C-alpha cells in the first residue's frame, strides 16, 4: 500500500461555482482535448460510433432537476465532477504498487502509469467517482489538475491554468492554492460559503463548491395570469427622428 507524503502547505485545487454553471460541458470537452494530447493521453473512446459509446473523461457534468421546496422554485442544478485532490486520499493509500501518489509539493494526486497494474482498487476506494479506468490501455487515469499546463513554461503565463478553468464561459471554475488563506480562491470560498463534498468520509477533499444562491419564485399564477397591459405609448411625444422610425417600423 502506498504512503502519503507529509502534509503540504500548498494545496492546489479547484473552486466550482454551482450558481453560475450552466451545464454546457465546455470544461469536460476542453479537459478531454488537452489531456488526450498531453502527458496523460490517450483518453480512449470505445464503441465511438455505436450504440453505447464510452470513453475516459477526467471531468463529467451531471445535471439535476430540483423540485420546488418551500419558497424555492423548481430549478436545474449542474454539477461538474472531477478529482478533488484530497488531503488524505483513500485512492492513494489503497494502491498496492505506488502508482497512485500524492505530490508533497502541491498536493496534486497523480497516477504513474508505468507502475499501474490496473487492479482498480483506487476506483473502488474513491467515493467521488473521480477515477477513470482505460479498459483498452489497462491502466487507471485521472484528473492531473493539468500539471502539464500549470507549470509549463512553454505556454504563456496567463494560460498556465487547468484547461477546464480556461474554457469555462461563465467563469464558474477557479484554480489556486487552497492551502493559502489569503489566496484569491480562498477568499472566494469564504465570501460565498464554499463547501467540501462529503467531508464526513474523512478524506479531506481540497476542492470546494460554491452553493447556488436562492432563486425567487414568481407569482403562483404566473403561467396563466393575463399579460400585463401594454404601456401607454404616444408617438407624438417622440422627437422627429424616432417618430419617423416608429412610422417606418409600424408599417
Amino acid at each position, binding site marked *: 500500500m502506498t*504512503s502519503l507524503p507529509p502534509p503540504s502547505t500548498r494545496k492546489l485545487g479547484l473552486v466550482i461555482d454551482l450558481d453560475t454553471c450552466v451545464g*454546457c460541458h465546455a470544461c469536460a470537452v476542453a479537459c478531454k482535448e488537452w489531456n488526450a494530447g498531453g502527458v496523460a*493521453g490517450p483518453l*480512449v473512446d470505445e464503441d465511438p*460510433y455505436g450504440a453505447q459509446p*464510452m470513453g475516459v473523461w477526467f471531468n463529467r457534468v451531471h445535471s439535476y432537476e430540483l423540485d420546488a421546496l418551500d419558497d424555492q422554485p423548481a430549478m436545474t442544478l449542474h454539477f461538474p465532477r472531477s478529482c478533488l485532490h484530497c488531503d488524505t486520499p483513500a485512492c492513494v493509500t489503497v494502491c498496492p504498487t505506488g502508482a497512485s501518489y500524492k505530490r508533497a509539493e502541491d498536493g496534486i494526486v497523480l497516477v504513474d502509469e508505468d507502475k499501474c497494474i490496473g487492479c482498480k482498487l483506487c476506483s473502488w476506494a474513491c467515493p467521488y467517482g473521480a477515477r477513470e479506468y482505460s479498459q483498452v490501455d489497462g491502466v487507471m487515469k485521472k484528473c492531473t489538475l493539468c500539471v502539464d499546463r500549470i*507549470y509549463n513554461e512553454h505556454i504563456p503565463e496567463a494560460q498556465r491554468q487547468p484547461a477546464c478553468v480556461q474554457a469555462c464561459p461563465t467563469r464558474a471554475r477557479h484554480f489556486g492554492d487552497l492551502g493559502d488563506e489569503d489566496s484569491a480562491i480562498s477568499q472566494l470560498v469564504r465570501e460565498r460559503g464554499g463547501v467540501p463534498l462529503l467531508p464526513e468520509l474523512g478524506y479531506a477533499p481540497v476542492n470546494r463548491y460554491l452553493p447556488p444562491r436562492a432563486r425567487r419564485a414568481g407569482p403562483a399564477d404566473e403561467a396563466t395570469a393575463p399579460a400585463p397591459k401594454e404601456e401607454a405609448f404616444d408617438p407624438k411625444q417622440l422627437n422627429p427622428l424616432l417618430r419617423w422610425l416608429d412610422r417606418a417600423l409600424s408599417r
Partner: protein
Amino acid sequence: MEAAPAAEPSSAPAGHLLPEGEGKERFPLHALTQRPPFMYHAWGSQNAWLRQIATRNFLYLHPATARDHGVADGDWVRLDSHHDSITVPVRIATNMQPDTVWTWNAIGKRRGAWKLSPDAPEGTKGFLLNPLISDLTPRGDYANADPVTGQAAWFDLRVRMAKAEPPDESLPQYAPLAGAAASDQPLRYGAAFRGSGGSREAFPKDFQPADAKEGVAAVAAPTKSRTP
C-alpha cells in the same frame, strides 16, 4: 424574402396564423426545442466525444401536464401539430412550465447519418421537432420564419399530445442513408504522443512548482524506484 403563393384561400382573417378556433383549442401546448450547449462546441454536433454526453433525447413534460394526459415517466406520446405528427419518449420534469413541452434539438439523427452504426440511439430513439414545423405558415403565404432574421420559427410551434403505444423506434423513421458505418475500433487520440516506449518518465518530474524543483521529487513519490 418572397411570399409563396397561398395553397388555397383561407377563411382566416388577416394574419398568417391558423384559422380562428384552430390555434389554442386544437393545439394547447407550446413545443420548444433548443440546441444543447454541449453541441455548440462543434457545430457538426455528432463527434465521438460529444455523443457520449447524450446519444438520445426525451420530450420533457411538467408533472401536471403529464397527469392531465395520463402519461407517466418513460411513456411514449404522439405529438401533433397543424403540419404532421411524431411519436417520442417522455421524461417528467418539474423545472419547466406546465403549458410547454421541450426537448433537445440536434441529437436525433436519420439512420446512417454521421456514419453512426444502425443501432445508434440517435437514429432509433432520438428525434427532432422538425417534422412538426412547416416551411410555410399554416396559411401558406409566407415562409415560417422570423421576417427580420430569417430564423426558422422554432418557438412558434403549438402541439397537442396523446399517450401512445411504445413503438420500437421513435417516429417518423426515414430510409437509412447509404454508406458504411464508421469503424467500431476504439479511438486513441493522443497515443502517438506517447513515444515508442510508452514511458511516462517525464510526467512527474518536469512539472513542479518553481521553488520545489530541487529535492522534493523523492518525497512526492515515496515508492518510486525506477531509474531514469
